[in-house]
């Protein structure tokens, strides 16, 4: 299978013993894992369907050690795969068979939290939620909140340009990071961005966000902190029809409201979540919307009133407004637990991540339901409806012959539809190895070639995270040929 060819790529010829010797010369002994059993925990990230042992795992404790590792790898032409908490869902941190996994887990210091400049300087291994916890005494927080925020780290957030449930109003990682310090593959220290609001030259800081570890190894990040709103309230609206829920999303935006969060769950997702967390969701609804307002108490009261009016006009069969912070958190708990809740219903699932224009939401849901029948696999849907980012969760059992292949085909069909509807194959989870082939659906050969040239501007020999993010031109051609020859393509 093509994904396997990514990790089993044999372009690199590495003398493992010489590599170990070179690394031992520059690192303390405990910073290297070389035995198979100690490397096992590093064989995959959140995309657990694909596992690969690396040659070596390195656990540097500071930037100087990261630099030493990168220099050795550069000199010996060894692939480098940087790794944070490995919660990523697209295989961005899957090891390379001939490469070194550089775990940044030990670089977990919060270097400073400055309430006056509203910034925090952190090492890449700091967990997303710890930044907000450290800023909490100053009534500040770090806005991007991916579902994995308890575990995922800032370095990984930058590498993937992580989103969350509040990005429509507060932006993605790229909007909340001011400076990234790191190492180029030749071991030079570079800083993209600074403590001001812009930097001279090209916007390399923007380029670092979402670059999936292919351009540099991150060693330090300055993030922007946001003042905590005085109050937040969430409205839950139930709909008897998915189409009405989709129209309500458009209606809210048309009314000039930018909700702090706007999420949608379909019946299967509600039924997965409710017995698991008792969030109080309407089990009879075809879909629910969670719509959050934040700001001053006056502002929130005004906005909740306007939201409620739009939701009623759109045909909501039930509306509830959180009455206190505990209730607000309970309403959100269901949405945030959607992935593990679905995980309880099925031995395995695939989480897709296409983004489409909001107006196509209902159409997309209909199409997903038809595909679910076609491939005879259940699918629960949770959407970041405010920004059109879909997370269909395709349930399968890898132990049943053929089910994984059907699940992959189902997922590919959803991604093709996302592109056809004017959207993208990935909104926030990244390409990694999972979607590397589908890139050819979205980009022309000339565009893919431009990505390769851009990569080479940073990493001439292609040592940083090879096989991820951008397909080779040969694989693009293969993909396109296979598509043309395929009668099962759902394009219509």
């Amino acid at each position, binding site marked *: 299978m093509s994904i396997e060819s990514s990790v089993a790529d044999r372009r690199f010829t590495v003398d493992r013993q010489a590599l170990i010797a070179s690394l031992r010369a520059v690192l303390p002994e405990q910073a290297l894992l070389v035995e198979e059993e100690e490397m096992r925990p590093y064989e995959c990230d959140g995309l657990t369907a694909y596992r690969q042992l690396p040659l070596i795992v390195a656990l540097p404790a500071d930037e100087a050690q990261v630099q030493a590792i990168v220099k050795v790898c550069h000199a010996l032409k060894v692939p480098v795969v940087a790794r944070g908490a490995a919660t990523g869902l697209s295989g961005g941190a899957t090891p390379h068979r001939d490469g070194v996994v550089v775990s940044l887990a030990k670089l977990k210091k919060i270097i400073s939290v*400055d309430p*006056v*400049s*509203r910034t925090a300087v952190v090492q890449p291994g700091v967990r997303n939620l710890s930044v907000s916890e450290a800023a909490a005494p*100053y009534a500040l927080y770090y806005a991007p909140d991916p579902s994995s925020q308890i575990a995922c780290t800032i370095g990984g957030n930058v590498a993937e*340009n992580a989103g969350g449930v509040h990005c*429509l109003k507060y932006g*993605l990682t*790229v*909007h909340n990071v001011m400076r990234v310090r790191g190492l*180029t593959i030749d071991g030079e220290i*570079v800083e*993209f961005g*600074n*403590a*001001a*609001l*812009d930097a*001279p*030259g*090209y*916007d390399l800081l*923007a*380029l670092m966000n979402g*670059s999936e570890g292919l*351009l540099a190894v991150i060693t330090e990040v300055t993030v922007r902190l946001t*003042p905590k709103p005085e109050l937040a309230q969430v409205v839950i609206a139930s709909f008897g029809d998915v189409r009405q829920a989709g129209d309500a999303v458009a*209606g809210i935006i*048309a009314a000039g409201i*930018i909700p702090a969060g706007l999420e949608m769950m379909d019946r299967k997702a509600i039924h997965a979540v409710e017995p698991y967390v008792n969030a109080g969701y309407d089990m009879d609804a075809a879909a629910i919307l969670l719509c959050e307002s934040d*700001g*001053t108490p*006056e*502002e929130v009261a*005004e906005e909740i009133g306007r939201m409620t009016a739009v939701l009623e006009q759109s045909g909501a069969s039930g509306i509830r407004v959180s009455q206190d912070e505990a209730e607000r958190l309970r309403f959100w708990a269901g949405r945030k637990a959607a992935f593990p809740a679905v995980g309880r219903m099925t031995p395995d699932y695939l989480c897709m991540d296409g*983004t489409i*224009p*909001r*107006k196509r939401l209902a159409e997309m849901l209909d199409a997903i339901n038809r595909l679910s029948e076609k491939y005879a696999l259940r699918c629960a849907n949770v959407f970041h409806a*405010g*920004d*059109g980012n879909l997370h269909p969760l395709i349930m399968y059992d890898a132990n049943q012959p053929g089910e994984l292949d059907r699940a992959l085909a189902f997922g590919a069909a959803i991604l093709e539809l996302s592109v056809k509807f*004017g*959207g993208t*194959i990935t*909104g*926030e989870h990244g*390409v990694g190895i999972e*979607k590397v082939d589908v*890139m050819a659906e979205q980009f*022309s050969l*000339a*565009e893919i070639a*431009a990505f390769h*040239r*851009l*990569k*080479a501007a*940073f990493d001439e020999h292609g040592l940083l995270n090879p096989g991820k993010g*951008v397909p080779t031109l040969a694989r693009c051609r293969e993909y396109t040929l296979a598509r043309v020859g395929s009668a099962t393509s759902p394009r219509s």
Partner: protein
Amino acid sequence: MEGLIENWIGRVADAASAGRSLAIRGGGSKAFYACPEQGEVLEVSGHRGIVAYEPTELVVTARAGTPLRELAAALAEKGQWLPFEPPHFGASATVGGMFAAGLSGPRRQAVGALRDYVLGVKVLNGSGEVLSFGGQVMKNVAGYDVARLFAGSLGTLGVVLEVSLKVLPLPVAEKSLRFSIDEAAALGKLNAWGGRPLPISASAWHQGVLTLRLSGAAAAVAAAQRHLGGEELAAGLATAFWESLREQTYAFFAGDAPLWRLSLPSVAPPQPLPGSTLIEWGGAQRWLREGDGRAIRVAAARAGGHATLFRADHALKASEGVFQPLPAPLLRIHRQLKRAFDPQGVFNRGRMYPGL
């Protein structure tokens, strides 16, 4: 339109094979900015028009030659706008010029910069290929973020053909307040207020007067006004004031003296530099008239930021350089990126840095 792009592709190929440079020109409103144009002019303002605009999607796609005024009017008709308040610097300003210059106006401190609203681009590269990056949706991590790389790249990487931008609803209410206060105290206040959930959307300090603008829900603006005090500025005067800052028609910007822009951490103290200063963006953007270029650049770097020679004659630009010099590893990456998109160095040669 297609004929136009075909023609440009031919021009690019000719220039590449002859080793010539093309100076990309839209409305010419920002020709004063950055290093002087070199080479034969490639006139691109004919490629114009809004390609797609659906207010409920919060996205607009426009061809690069679209007059900025036309785009602003189309958005205003639907109660929306570009929240980063891009400066036009003239009636001829185009969407492509706005994007290539990458400049943002007074609201930048509150809502982010132009690059934060960029969703996608279509460009013509130095090999004559038409390429699209990003898209028309809010979230998109497929491929490198080339769309944002092109924002503010001053046309050095290619010709921008189309831009997709996120738009937002216009604020419901706005009020501007004035305070008499000295520079250091103003910087202190601005940073303290910045750490609280106040709807401050712009600030300007000059000659002992701090002007603040509040924007948002009517209730929030009213509550903040009660809390902050100050003297309210009449609505018409306030609109004119913020527009004159955005367009640099305010008295501070008049005359031929060189204009320096210092981009600093908002908490940087008053700079020990001679000359008149005007402070925007909560302390993060500071303008200076006159001064010694070397001293300004040293002070900016020491404070953790950088300085741009924003307006000056060619001679001064040539001797001081327009933009803060880049550290060697970054300059190397810039040169390699330039080569990746424009291998023959056709576009806007030297417009950002010599040799780029």
